[in-house]
């Protein structure tokens, strides 16, 4: 198990490093001059001499590989550079912006799991074809609705028509409700789609018939047998779901004029503040990697078929089925000529 953990950790670190490299390549190595993008523009009154000075200040006059190594070194020490707009350290900006975004993203995730998961379970469990048909038609609709428009519509109804929640800002829990609902919409649609497809598939598995033949009720079969099996594949996309919440925050926080990571991203892109954009992308990649790391650790506990250690490898699926011919001679007659030692 610990070997497995170490392997996973190293893999996660590798993905993170590669993600850093990708953002560096996109932001610094694509044709175009970062300094003139950041400070230039057609209407700029910065002189070429000043630009050169700035390049030197940011180390951008160095060859690309040198810049890369230097920046990577800084990043490893927790220094992501400074914003070109207001000169603040990127880490500080992100640290300030993270909590409000985490608040609505967390709320949205809970909402999405409850609504999306509930919809999938009810839609697949009900005997009424009409109800299930109606429920199953909702997720495609949820995916098709642009969240910026959905957010505005919510404001229209629940701030203006019926003034329940504030239309914008960061004051208190009430102000987080509409943004969270907005964020949750595409996420819950995704969860509902994945889970209901998975459930419908699982319910056709022969082991469901086996359970019914035991005399189990449909509810029992649905919740005790089908749901757990169906939820496993859905679990693997959690990383994508959470990544989706982060990018959804860009739009949502703009709609609700909320401070947060998304708003920071939007303003930084508008101001072409490259170090901040890079910082935000890295945060997103880190979250994704951490979530997947967590899933990797939890998954084997939920699915016995995934073997973590190297010991029980005979049971892993690929080569011929272990002991099919005769049950009497035990399972260890697999013709394995062991190559490497464990």
């Amino acid at each position, binding site marked *: 198990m610990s070997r497995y953990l170490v392997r996973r950790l190293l*893999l996660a670190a590798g*993905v993170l490093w*590669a*993600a850093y490299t*990708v*953002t560096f390549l*996109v*932001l610094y190595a*694509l044709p*175009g001059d*970062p300094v003139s*993008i950041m400070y230039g523009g057609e209407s700029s009154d910065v002189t070429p001499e000043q630009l050169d000075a700035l390049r030197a200040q940011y180390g951008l006059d160095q060859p690309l590989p040198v810049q890369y190594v230097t920046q990577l070194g800084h990043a490893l020490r927790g220094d992501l550079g400074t914003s070109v707009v207001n000169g603040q350290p990127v880490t500080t900006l992100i640290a300030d912006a993270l909590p409000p975004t985490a608040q609505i993203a967390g709320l949205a995730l809970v909402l999405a799991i409850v609504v999306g998961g509930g919809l999938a379970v009810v839609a697949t469990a009900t005997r009424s074809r009409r109800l299930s048909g109606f429920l199953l038609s909702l997720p*495609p609709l949820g*995916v*098709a*609705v*642009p*969240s*910026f*428009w959905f957010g*505005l*519509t919510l*404001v*229209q109804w629940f701030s203006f028509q019926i003034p329940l929640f504030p*239309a914008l800002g960061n004051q208190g829990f009430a102000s987080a409700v509409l943004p969270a609902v907005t964020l949750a919409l595409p996420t819950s649609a995704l969860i509902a789609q994945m889970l209901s*497809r998975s459930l*419908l598939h699982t319910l056709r598995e*022969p082991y469901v*018939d086996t359970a019914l033949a035991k005399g189990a009720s449909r509810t029992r079969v649905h919740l005790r047998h089908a749901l757990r099996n169906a939820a496993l594949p859905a*679990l*693997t996309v*959690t*990383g*994508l779901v959470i*990544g989706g919440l982060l*990018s*959804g925050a*860009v*739009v949502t926080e*703009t*709609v609700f004029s909320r401070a947060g990571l998304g708003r920071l*991203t939007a303003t930084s*892109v*508008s101001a*072409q*503040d490259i170090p901040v*954009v890079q910082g935000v*992308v890295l945060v*997103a*990649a880190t979250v*994704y*990697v951490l979530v*997947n790391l967590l*899933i*990797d650790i939890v*998954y084997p506990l939920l699915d016995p078929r995934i073997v973590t250690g190297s010991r029980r490898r005979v049971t892993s699926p*690929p*080569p*011929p089925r272990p002991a*099919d011919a005769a049950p009497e001679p035990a399972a260890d007659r697999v013709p394995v000529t062991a190559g490497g030692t464990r």
Partner: protein
Amino acid sequence: MSSLDALTAGERGPQPPTEAFVPTALDPNTRADKFAATSAERFADAVLEREDSLARRSPWRTRFEDLVRKPGLVLALVWSAVILLAAFVPSLLAPGDPLDGVPADKLQAPSSAHWFGTDQLGRDLYSRVVHGTHLTLAAALTAVLVGLVVGALVGLVAGFVGGVVDDVAMRVVDVLLSIPALLLSLALITVLGFGTINVAIAVGLANVASVSRIMRSEVLRVRTSVFVEASHASGSRWWTTLGRHVLPNAIGPVVVLAALELGAAVLAVSSLSFLGYGEPPPAPEWGALVAGGRDYLRTSWWLTTLPGLTIVATVLAAGRISRALDGDPGRNR
């Protein structure tokens, strides 16, 4: 197995063949293939098979009957036709000028004169939506084209060549997938600058990873299918097999994907134009139209609602058509 592996399970290169030529069809274990399904299913299969052959005998009649049974699809097709018309000959649908406003008529609610009402400058919203179709659709199509061409190429090469090439390509794809697509688009826009074309390219490139992964698994599926090996074994040259067996069978899912991606691209493009990274103001991009209505939310609901519904309808239509191309899975009846 990592969760990423789980996602790609079954498409991870050549498995060590155990006993069979190709896992599913030839492994003698699966001689039970036919017996494994319950007889009910088997019977249904037999029936469906007969239906299939009936369908083949009179394709047009059955197609038409199918359509009548699927009002949603008919609606989607009609809407797509309207959208295409609006994109190519907008003046046919809306003869008015989308940029020319009558200040006296500002912020009017929808009426027979102004179907979608007017905005704060007295411009006809309906004309603006119709004329904006061209911008949004062109951007979405470009994005799909970029994503599909680059992604399909990467996936095709990775799936067909295999080995180290495949490993490297898929690791890169894994990394790209760790960055949410919208954020990747935003990073690209930061460097490329604003404007419809840049938005389109950014959205397209952000999709390369997922498209290439799907294409690869599709190529692997077809490449390892028995009829491809049969073709190989009967003496066909490999390029004949690739061109006459693998591609025709792998292309179907890509077309399905293209339709689906078009809907997603419309969403992404209008999100970015809502955020203000598209064409500068007077241009009536759909996302920008919604953004423009934001300040009049309290008084003039139509400014956000109607362009928004247009987007929803378009994305839904793309999704519905994609599902129809896919042979309507999930709605099995």
